[in-house]
């Protein structure tokens, strides 16, 4: 229950921050000022936006399939939000400690495409249908490299539970961890902690895996340069063209939630999750000081701080990419997924399994 309330609250605060940050980032990259009117430096612009969306009329087009059109936002939001159930928010707070954590995330977020297709088909407009078709084919294509890159990390950490994957990457690990994961080097890193325990160092090739995961994650959340499903200049808004008011807000909220989920997963799988980046150096116990005991107030605050700051940095990277790169063409999109990312991800799965054997020999 705590995790549910925290996730929902985090999501609502995050949408306010991310919306404002996105506009300001876009503005500064394009040498504009961005929002300036509402409050000092325009910081209340998202609140004004929210008030506007609440007052807007809820329009259901006459030709639309009412059931599909009305229930699609529920499914879209439910699919993304349920993904947060197994994400460890701090070192002791997690919605559900099921043993199939990361597998469940992949499964439930795939339901997203059913909602998107219901929205696109149900609205009975050509723009929404095109947007939904593009969106479904894109998400479906990038699901494969995404899953395979998760698989490499699962091989390294031998667990599907995200809390367990997190715990292995820091000083709280119950097993002995070695530098680069290799036992025969004989340098235990349990007492050192910090970034030396992260999966990106335990399996050094995983920096490429992380790249694949991040690109596939961008495509999963329909972000630029993979924003063909809602390219404004061609098909207005894609699958959510016909929505207005609160229903539109829900669709937008789930898109931003997907961004947050992808960035949280990137930081958990590769960058240590809620673990501190600072190692213990001699008598300077930086890692111990900035981790705290799990279960205590300080432990929760520190771990939440590290996880959130890592994911917000990644979100900033996503925004930076959005306003820097041009949109891909549809043939480039399928080529990138099937001809580059998927074969490389398969190769890294094999390399990860060999590395895992070297880790325990």
């Amino acid at each position: 229950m705590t995790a549910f309330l925290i996730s929902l609250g985090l999501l609502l605060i995050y949408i306010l921050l991310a919306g404002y940050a996105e506009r300001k980032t876009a503005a500064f990259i394009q040498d504009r000022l961005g929002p300036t009117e509402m409050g000092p430096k325009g910081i209340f612009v998202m609140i004004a936006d929210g008030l506007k969306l609440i007052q807007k009329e809820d329009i259901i087009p006459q030709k639309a399939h009412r059931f599909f059109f009305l229930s699609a936002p529920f499914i879209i939001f439910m699919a993304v939000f349920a993904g947060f159930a197994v994400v460890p928010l701090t070192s002791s707070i997690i919605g559900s400690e099921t043993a199939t954590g990361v597998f469940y995330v992949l499964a439930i977020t795939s339901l997203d495409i059913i909602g998107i297709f219901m929205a696109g088909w149900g609205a009975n407009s050509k723009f929404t249908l095109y947007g939904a078709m593009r969106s479904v084919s894109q998400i479906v294509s990038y699901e494969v490299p995404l899953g395979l890159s998760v698989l490499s990390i699962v091989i390294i950490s031998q667990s599907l539970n995200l809390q367990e994957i997190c715990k292995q990457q820091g000083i709280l690990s119950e097993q002995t961890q070695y530098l680069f994961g290799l036992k025969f080097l004989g340098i235990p890193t349990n007492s050192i902690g910090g970034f030396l325990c992260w999966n990106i160092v335990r399996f050094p090739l995983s920096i490429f895996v992380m790249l694949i995961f991040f690109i596939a994650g961008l495509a999963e959340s329909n972000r630029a340069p993979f924003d063909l499903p809602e390219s404004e200049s061609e098909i207005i808004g894609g699958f959510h063209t016909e929505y207005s008011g609160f229903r539109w807000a829900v669709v937008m909220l789930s898109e931003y939630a997907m961004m947050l989920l992808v960035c949280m997963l990137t930081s958990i799988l590769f960058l240590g999750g809620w673990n501190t980046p600072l190692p213990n150096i001699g008598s300077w116990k930086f890692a111990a000081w900035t981790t705290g005991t799990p279960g205590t107030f300080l432990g929760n605050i520190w771990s939440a701080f590290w996880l959130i700051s890592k994911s917000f940095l990644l979100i900033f990277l996503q925004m930076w990419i959005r306003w820097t790169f041009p949109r891909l063409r549809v043939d480039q999109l399928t080529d990138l997924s099937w001809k580059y990312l998927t074969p490389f991800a398969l190769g890294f799965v094999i390399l990860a399994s060999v590395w895992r054997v070297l880790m325990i020999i």
Partner: protein
Amino acid sequence: MVSDFGNILLFIVGAIIFIRLGLWVTRLFRANNPNIEKLSTYECGEETLGSAWRQFNVRFYVIALVFVLFEIEMVFLFPWAVTFGNELFFVQTKGWGLWIGVLEGILFIGILGFGLIYPWKKGHLTWIKPTISPKVPCAKVPSYLYEQINKKYERHSVS
């Protein structure tokens, strides 16, 4: 005591209740006076012709088919991934069990790789682009006249 999947159910039900509540609350604030114009399908101000519920390109089905194949194979890889590299397994088999696990994995991924190469070579992964033939101008004025004019006013053009 709620079970692990009970907690997941809480998230799913909670998300639906959150949207339902939001819709009820915003009903108090929002206007509601629909008319024919508002409820018409949006098509940039044009009258819509026909319905959008029609056939769409077969290319999307091919992608979906390849996806289904790969997704199923990935589902089989997950149980392998969490069992083969277990340290207990290593101790019990004195080491050789691990390499057999890896070999099995490589074999499976190899078959998966063939499954990727086959549609690749068949050309199913390439997005079929429409061929555009360059248009031949059908103007009565011969093109050398245009070129003459271009040459004549060349110095006026801003470079």
